[in-house]
């Protein structure tokens, strides 16, 4: 009796949390199409930094959208900025959007749990249970790999002001180390007051005013 009550509470809890997680905000949310269209608008308005920022954000939600990749290249190439290329591993683990992969990972977790429990209960279907467990582990692994690939992009930022000085120290009067072009995508490695320590794809580091940067994933 107690076991049944526990199981019912678990199911109710999972359903409630799942509904909350999937609940759509009425306004102020992000959609891949909306961000893509916003990037197009900025690109046409001659603001490549903001255009690249919105394309990058759209590609987070729809990683396999060819239009986003094409327009990113179209904006970057005139500025002589290098476009990011994905290797086979990155292409493999972004088969679906992170949102979809989140549910896939959850499904894998349930498969693993159910397989392990069933193996204890139904000894005669042991191999079936083990196969289900392995499938679940594979699904979880796919989600984890997606997270590993996306993790660096969550800390990237786009330069939105042309000729942004990267300084040797986090001070407005600090000596300029190099100058960043607009629409350059950099990695933020540290922050100090109004400055962020950025690293370019070429490996150069410098302190940049956060007013000149827009993080790809806006911090809440």
């Amino acid at each position, binding site marked *: 009796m107690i076991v049944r009550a526990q199981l019912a509470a678990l199911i109710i809890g*999972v359903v409630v949390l799942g509904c909350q997680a999937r609940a*759509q905000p009425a306004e*102020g949310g992000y959609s891949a199409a909306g961000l893509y*269209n916003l990037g197009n608008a900025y690109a046409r308005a001659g603001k490549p930094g903001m255009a690249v920022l919105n394309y990058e954000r759209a590609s987070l939600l729809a990683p396999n959208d060819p239009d986003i990749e094409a327009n990113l290249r179209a904006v970057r190439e005139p500025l002589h900025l290098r476009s990011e290329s994905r290797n086979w591993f990155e292409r493999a683990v972004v088969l679906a959007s*992170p949102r979809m992969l*989140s549910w896939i990972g959850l499904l894998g977790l349930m498969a693993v749990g159910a397989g392990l429990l069933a193996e204890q209960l139904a000894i005669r279907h042991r191999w079936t249970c083990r196969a289900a467990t392995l499938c679940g582990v594979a699904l979880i692994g796919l989600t984890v790999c997606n997270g590993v690939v996306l993790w660096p992009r969550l800390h990237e930022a786009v330069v939105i002001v042309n000729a942004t000085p990267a300084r040797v120290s986090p001070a407005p009067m600090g000596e300029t180390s190099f100058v960043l072009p607009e629409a350059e995508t950099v990695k933020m490695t540290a922050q100090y007051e109004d400055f962020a320590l950025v690293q370019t794809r070429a490996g150069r580091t410098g302190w940049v005013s956060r007013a000149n940067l827009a993080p790809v994933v806006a911090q809440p």
Partner: protein
Amino acid sequence: MSSKRIRRAEPIALIVALLVTAPALATGILASATIEPAEITIGESAQLTITSLDADTQPITLPLVSGLEFRVVERSRRIEFINGATLATTTMVVRVTPQVAGTFTIPGITPVSQPLVLRVDKDNGIGNSSLAANSSSSPSRPTIARGALPSGIHMTPDGSAFVQLSVPKRDVYVGESIPVSIEVGMRAGVVRSLNGLPMLAGSDFTLNNLSRQPERVQKTIDGKPFTVLTWHSVLAAVKPGSFSLIVESPLTVRISTRPQREAMLEDQLGDPFMQNIFGPTVQKDIKVASPPVELTVSMLPTEGRPPDFSGAVGAFAIATDISPLTAAAGDPLTLRLHVIGSGNFDRVDSAMLAHVDQWKTYPPKSSFKSNDAIGYKGEKIFEQPLIASKPGAQTLPGLTFSYFEPTTRRYETARSAPLGVTISPSLADSSLTAQQLAALTTAQPTDQSPGGLRPDHIASGSIASSLIPLYLQPRFLAIPSLLTFAFAGGWLRLRRRAADSTGRNSRRDRGLSKANRVLVQLEAAARAGDSAQFFNVARSALQRALAARWQLAPEQMSAADMDARLGSDGDSDEIRQLFALADEANYSPLQPATIDFARWTRIVRRGLTGETAP
């Protein structure tokens, strides 16, 4: 008796006198040995002139006097014919330079010459030159008519150079900058070189670095050509009090070694070139000092001193500006404070704006642009970066700057007007509104977009509340966490249940095997008809089983304990009866025919396995 002795002594005295004067006669007769002047000061030299009437005599050795340095500067020989007789004279000019002050006695060069006395005074530090013969102590050679000089110029006694310090005011304050000019006049042909920049004597004042390229003009002073070098600098007093300000300049001058009268004639010639040709000279390093300038230095008053006073003394005015006047939130702006005027700009400082609501302020940086060569007049600019945190029309408060005005002798505070700027929202944190997006889109139609952008998408599909992947959001992570705990708990529970079941079965199996072994022994004893063995085995097996059931040690369980713990049912009575028969069989073996071994074996089995009687 005494007269006789005197008469005898006279020839002896004559002989001794002849013996004493003979070497002097043999070395020649000294005509004269003079020193001019007889009184000099440290840093000057005197001229010792030795004239010998016989040139064929041995060379004259210079005397050794502690504290005096002798150096021959000239030798000359003169031959005169007087009434058919030839008279040869040799003249040697020796420069005598004292090392210390005091009165020196120069012994006679020859035994017949008289010793000379040279008096050396300490240096008074004012306008000395090497030509001691021209000093005030020897007024016989006033080569420069001082009364004819322009006012303010104090020439050295020999007229070779002068140093003049011009200070615009006599009452100053500690830390106040005073513009000064230093003139060094050098008579052409007399002063060989300037050996360094003029320096202040003493440590009561500081003088800014002098330029190595001073103003250079040619002047005629008192009918003589002079090269005048002029430095402009800034002077500052370091402590209060009354001080005499003196500037010294190191020079190398050419000293004439002519006798005084000849030197006077040379001065009459006027032309230094002619003087150099006809007059033998030597070089000497001297220091020429300016006449003292009396200054009174006061402390800055403490009354009325503003809290933000940084030590600036002078006359100043301020102005402020900010750029750009319009910026986005988060963009840096530069606030500038211009301090313009004259004074000690090295003490002009400002903290600018320390804290302003909705603004982030940074430490200012300053720069100075001088309007003159000495940095007395100019403009100091302070630049402070500011970052507005919120959009909207903002007003920055006015700035103040406090200084001490030496002419009015009080502190002044200059104030600037507040500055207004317009801050627009930042681009970085925007997700554009629909209207902004429409405005951007309509600003340039799609078909005009360069670069071949792919067309817009139809706005459909799911909307995410965050760009962070769902599996990294805490709200979503609660689901797998809960599932993981639930599955782990269920799995552990199942594992424990399986383990418990396995344990019970194994314990039961172990008990049955022990009972079987006992039953086998009982059967063997029954077949052998050994009642004592049978009952002993049965009793010990039951005793162990009961002790285990009651959680007692078998050896600690007495008959009374067992009787008390056994109940009153049939099985208990049979066990009591079996224990009694076991005791009896130990002492008197029972007849096997009278014993129902099969019955007792069943009783023992029930006792070991816990079965109940049918």
